[in-house]
Structure formats: C-alpha cells, structure tokens
C-alpha cells in the first residue's frame, strides 16, 4: 500500500514520532496499572460482611467510672433496646464489623501446636447475635441461652466451650469434611464447633488482612466491660428513627455513660473504605486527564505535520489522490505510531506491574488489562488524528499549482 511513503516521511520527522510513541507507551502502562488498582480497590471495598447491612447499626457505649453492677446495667440496656418498637434484636459485643479494630487469635487443631492453623477474629455474642446481625446459619445450631456466660473485660481469659465459626474458616480448618462437631484448640483449650455461618467478616478493613478476612469465630459470651458495642437490627426502613430512640432509651436508663458516634453499617462501610475509594477516584481522574492530554498531543503534532505538508498534499490531490486517500494516509501513519506505542506500552505495563508486585503488596496484572489498554490507546490515536486528517483532506488540489 502506501506504507513506504509513510515510513520515509516519518524518518524525516523522527523526533515527533518518537515523542508520540513514548507518550502512548507511558499512557498505556499507567492506564493498565491504574485501572487494575481501581478495580481491585473497588472489589475490596464492596466485599459483603455477611450482615444485614442496611438495617444494622452500632452504638459505642462507655460507662463513667467502673460501675460495680455492670452485669445488671448491661442486662437492663439490652432489655431496653430489644423492647424498642422497630427493633428486631440487639446484643452486646467486644468487636464490630468495619470498625477496623478488634481481637484476634490463632486457632489450632491440636494442643501445643507450634504454628496456628489459622488466624481468626473473635466476636462475643449471646443467643441474640445471629438474629441481630442477620447472619445466615448454614449448619448446626445457634447458642442456647443457658450456654451464655458473662465475660468480664479484656483481662478475662475464660475459654469458650462451644463456638460458631464461618464457612471460610471451617473450610480452612477442615478442608473437604464437615467442621460441625469437630474440636478446635484456642489458647490450649478445646472448643466444640456447634454451628457454621455463611459469612462474617473480620473487623479489620486493611488489605493486609486479605488472607483471613472471612475467618471469624463467635463465642458464647455476654461482654461485660466498661467499653462495648451495642449492635441493633431494625425493621427495614426504620434505622434512622430507631437509632435516635435507642440513644434516648440508653440515656433514660442511665445518664452515667458516654456514647460514641453511633452509625449504621452502611455509614461504617463508607468510612472504612473512604481512602480506598478516594484512591480509585484519584487514579480515575488521572487516567482521564492522561487520555485527554495524550489525545491533544496527537492532535497538535499531527496538525503541525499537516501544515508542514500542505504543498505535498496539494500535489497528491492534483495527481489524483482522493480525499479518502489523504485521510487514510494520516490514519495509517497514526496506526503505525500507536501500534509501536502500544507494543512498547504493553511491555512497560507488565514490567511496571512486576516491579510493583515486588515493591508493594500488589497482585499480578491480569492479561486482559494490557490488551484492553492497547485497544484503548489505538482507538484514542485514531480518534485524535481524525480532525487533522480531515483538515488535510480539505486542502484543495490547486494549491499545488500556486507558487509557495
């Protein structure tokens, strides 16, 4: 075709072509990796907790001083909360979903094990916990009321005799067989698995917990401590009203307390992943700006080439080249440049990702990203070149006959 004249023209404009190639390559490399990070962060921030998030809220409660009758105060609070209209159920716990702070321990399969089989988050609950969070029990049973003991604060080391664990933890501990009825060892005490819930996330939201983010254990304790969480589930659509009523109820029961910022699980999710979402948005904006800048660069340089070659284009037109042929000339030229840019860009994207895998805790880039990126860059080039190419095509043939 017309590759030979294109290449020889390009040889005369080497630097301009190289600038566009490098621009496109870097654009592609950033685009792939940024899109990959965005996709991962969004996926991470959207993982389900396992709870009925729309209808669950949490109240952070702290007693003033160290009241002596804590168990009675706690029972009164719980009874008050459960009696509120619109409340499905409520319980008290040491830890709370999406709070980014909580307790964990190693879980073993036998006593005196050297390395734990799994790390898991601890949630204390009475028999109301499953209902209050809206967890789905997929095997076994819930705790009975007579199994629930009081656990007094952080320093109480009472071991749990029976536990409910998540499906993910069950599969990790007993791959390929039923975990129900099996024993696990926690701090050298055996506990019997009486139930399995479909899903319950650990309270931490940092990507570093990815390897155990669904390993949670529910222990049959009423958490009696000066600082604790009340977790309440409401009838659909009544969360706002019930939350206000619940805070009022607690202060009516006893004024000697401090309530932290109460919030729904939906709000907690927004807060917990704010930086992840922010990173995604920033990278998105940079990607968009990058594409625009690269496109304008192509428009600018190609327009310049068109201006430089006005006479030659006129001559070509006079010698019989159609407008279409002129447009195709610039499109082919751009395709060659963009193709070189895309090829280098794919290599650059993969090596950038490889470096990030080593330098940061990053995953390997999925093969589809460079592919999509290359297509985007090629389309971008074609779109950007269209306007200058059309302008070139509109150069009248009689230009060739006029003196310069």
């Amino acid at each position, binding site marked *: 075709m017309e590759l030979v004249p294109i290449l020889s023209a390009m040889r005369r404009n080497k*630097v301009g072509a190289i600038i566009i190639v490098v*621009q496109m390559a870097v654009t592609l490399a950033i685009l792939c990796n940024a899109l990959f990070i965005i996709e991962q962060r969004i996926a991470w921030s959207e993982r389900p907790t396992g709870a009925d998030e729309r209808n669950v809220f949490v109240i952070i409660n702290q007693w003033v001083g160290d009241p002596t009758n804590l168990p009675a105060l706690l029972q009164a609070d719980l009874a008050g909360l459960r009696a509120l209209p619109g409340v499905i159920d409520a319980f008290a716990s040491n830890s709370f979903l999406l709070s980014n702070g909580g307790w964990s321990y*190693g879980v073993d399969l036998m006593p005196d094990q050297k390395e734990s089989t799994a790390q898991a988050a601890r949630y204390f609950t009475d028999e109301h916990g499953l209902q209050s969070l809206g967890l789905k029990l997929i095997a076994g049973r819930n705790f009975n009321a007579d199994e629930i003991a009081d656990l007094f604060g952080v320093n109480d080391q009472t071991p749990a005799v029976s536990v409910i664990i998540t499906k993910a933890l069950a599969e990790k501990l007993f791959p390929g067989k039923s975990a129900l009825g099996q024993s696990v060892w926690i701090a050298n005490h055996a506990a019997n698995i009486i139930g399995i819930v479909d899903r319950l996330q650990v309270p931490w939201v940092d990507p570093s917990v990815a390897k155990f983010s669904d390993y949670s254990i529910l222990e049959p304790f009423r958490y009696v401590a000066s600082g604790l969480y009340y977790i309440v589930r409401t009838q659909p659509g009544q969360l706002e009203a019930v939350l206000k009523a619940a805070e009022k109820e607690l202060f009516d029961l006893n004024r000697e307390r401090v309530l932290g910022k109460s919030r729904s699980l939906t709000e907690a999710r927004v807060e917990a992943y704010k930086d992840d979402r922010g990173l995604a948005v920033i990278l998105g904006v*940079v990607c968009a700006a990058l594409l625009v800048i690269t496109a304008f660069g192509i428009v600018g340089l190609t327009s310049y080439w068109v*201006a430089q070659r006005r006479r030659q284009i006129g001559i070509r037109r006079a010698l019989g080249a159609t407008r279409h042929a002129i447009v195709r000339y610039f499109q082919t030229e751009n395709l060659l440049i963009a193709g070189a840019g895309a090829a280098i860009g794919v290599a650059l994207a993969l090596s950038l990702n490889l470096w990030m895998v080593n330098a940061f805790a990053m995953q390997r880039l999925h093969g589809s990203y460079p592919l999509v990126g290359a297509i985007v860059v090629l389309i971008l080039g074609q779109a950007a070149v269209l306007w200058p190419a059309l302008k070139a095509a509109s150069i009248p043939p009689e230009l060739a006959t006029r003196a310069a």
Partner: protein
Amino acid sequence: MFSYYLNLALRSLKRNVVLTMLMIAAIGVGIGASMTTLTIFRAMAADPIPNKSRQLFAVQIDNWGPSKSGVQTPDDKLQQQVSYTDAMGLMNAHAALRQTVMYSTGFALSPPNPNLRPFQVPARATYMDFFPMFEVPFRFGTPWTREDDEGRAPVAVISRELNDKVFGGANSVGKTLNLDKHDYRVVGVLDRWQPVPKFYDLNNNQYGEIEQAFIPFTRAIENQMTTWGNNNCSRDAVAPGWEGHLHSECVWFQFWAELPTAADAERYRYVLNNYAAEQQRLGRFHWAAHTRLRDVREWLADQHVVTDEARILVLVSFSFLLVCLLNAMGLMLAKIMGRAGDIGVRRALGANRRAIFGQCLIEAGVIGFAGGLVGLALTAAGLLGLRALLSEQTTRLTHLGFWEVGITVGTAVIATTLAGLYPTWRAAHIQPAWQLKAQ
C-alpha cells in the same frame, strides 16, 4: 538582553494562542497532579521532630521468641511494642538521659456542670520525661514531677483543646477534673502540638490527633486502666485478671529513650542486649538476645509510615507529568519549526546560534512559569478535592506550605526548560540560507 528575549517570547506566544494555551494546560495539569501527590507524600514522610529525630529512640525487644506469635512473620520483624515486664526492667535500668514507657488509654470526663453529659477523653499514661523528651510546648503550668511519678499522683496535663472545652481557655492549673469518677489536679496545659505523623505511638491512627490528657503511668497502672491501643499477646498462657495480663508476655507499651550522642546510643544498645541476655539466663527467654534500637527516622521507615498508596500515587502522577512534558515538547517542536522562516531571517541578520538558543529557551521558561502557576492553582484545588475524598486522618496531610509552592513553580520551570532543550537546539541549527531560499 533578557528583557528583550522575554518580550520576544511573549510576542511569539501571543502569535499562536491555541498552541500556547495547550502547552500551558498540559504542563499545568501534569504539575498539578504530581504536586498534589507529592505534598501528601512529603507530609507522610516528614520528620515530626527535626531537631531531635536522631536522639530519640524506640526500643524493641523480642520477648516472644521465634514462631510464638502464632502467625508467621519474617525473622527480623520484631514486635512493635514491649511488655510490662520489659518496660519496667528498662525503666529501672536508668540507662538513658531521659526515658519513658507509655500507653494509650482514656477516660469518661464528667464536666463540672452537672447538666452537661460526660464525654470521652483519649489519654496517654506516661512518665514526666515525656514532655521534655518530645519538646512538648506548654501554655500554662509545667509537667508533673518525679515525685508525682513515684507517688502515683492523681495529676494531669491536658491539651489546649480540652482546656478550651472545659475551662474556656483560662489558666486551669490547680483546678480539678473528674475523670472516671476520680479527681485529677491539672498541673499543666499544652500549647498547640501535633506531631505528624504521631511517631511516639503509631498504632491505630498514625496521623491522628494527640491525646487530650496525660497522666502518670504509675497512676494509670494502679487504677487498672485498660489500653485503648493495640494489645498483642503471644501464645504463652495468660494468667487471669489485671495482674495476670499485666505480667504476661502481651505487648501493649511503647518505650522511648533519649540518647543525645552516638556513644550514648551505642552504650544503650549494649545495655539493651545485656538485659535480654540476662532474661535468657533467668530462663524467661529461650532464645538469644534479639533487640532493636531505632531513632525516629529509622522507626518511621521500619513502620512503613509512608503508605504504599502514597508511593503508587506519586509514581503514577510523575509518570503523568512525564507524558505532559513530552506533550509540551512535541508542541514546542512544532511551534519552533513552524517559525523556521523567522529564525532564518534573524540568523541572516546576524543573530548567532547562542542568541537563538537563549531566546527559545526563555520562551520555554515562560511557558513553564505559566504552567507552574496553573499547576499551583490545580494543586490547591487537588488538595481541596482530596480533603473531600479521603478520611479525616489523611486530610491532615493536605497542607500547601511555602515550600510546596516553591517546589511546584520551580519544578514546572525547570522541567519545561529541559523539555524545551531539544526543540531549542533544533531551532539554533536552522540553516538561514536554506530558509531564505525557500521563501
């Protein structure tokens, strides 16, 4: 000559407004993006206590031994915090100029006015050395005394913010605060103090606010105040109750030492190692002494205070700047080559290559300066946008200081001038004869 070239540059830029605007916009956007992320990065990587960061040391002792954590960690990754036993052992060694063990805790404060509801006060339990060690500024009063430390005195130093809230900003030294139903006497009120990052305790909230109340460590332990911070236990059994937890191998204390000279630090390393070896001899540690002493900068690096996210953003935005500069370079090339005729005439009239070179370079510099100003505006807008996007603790890092302004404009001018070097060089090598002939 400079002003003449400047004049020429401005005229030349005015001749092709669209191209000029495009170049300025490209540089502005690139500079804006990279300076926004760089500002955050610089704030994260900042030295929170520049004149003492080489004299303050965080202490780490391996009291768990290999593979006791229950989770696999690389060998030299020591626990971030120390146990009560080790903290007390080191306090009693008195081997540093100043030293303190501390932990994060808190109170419910009952205001003097009974109609107001009690509220939460995050607090830090520490020794009086904390204040001179970390150069904490006082508005009223002083730290408590050594006798207060020994006597477990119910005294408190409060933050300026808490003083404003409870005492309306007046000098509250000598007044009492009701903290969890115990009376504490205020001995000092801090002035504004916010180390970023909060290096002395990086748990929970690295860029968070400082505590609102400080009380003697000995008092907090006597009152069995639980930690509000991070608490990590090994797989060793923990005896029940407060005493059991306190004397267990659980780590929840930060330990800092002030060692003014390198010799002091060396001696302290020796003391620290001896202490761990002694624990091995006593049968508490079943492994060779494994300790670390890191100054503030080493500590922040070790604790990865600058997040991977910040590094990635800086990387991405500087690659973006590179693209923008290449862009401007291409456009500059186009512009200069488009003016080859003019340059040919100037050369024929006697301008030498240096003059052309200087003239074009100044033109590039002008574009860079304008791009820098646009970039500055975009950086300010970018930081404002980030404040809305990111969590409250991260927004503490979005301040545009004098230095950032300088760096922004400076980078723009220098980078654009560098990008202009090649087009300028091409301009200087335009053959006057050839150009004149073509006309």
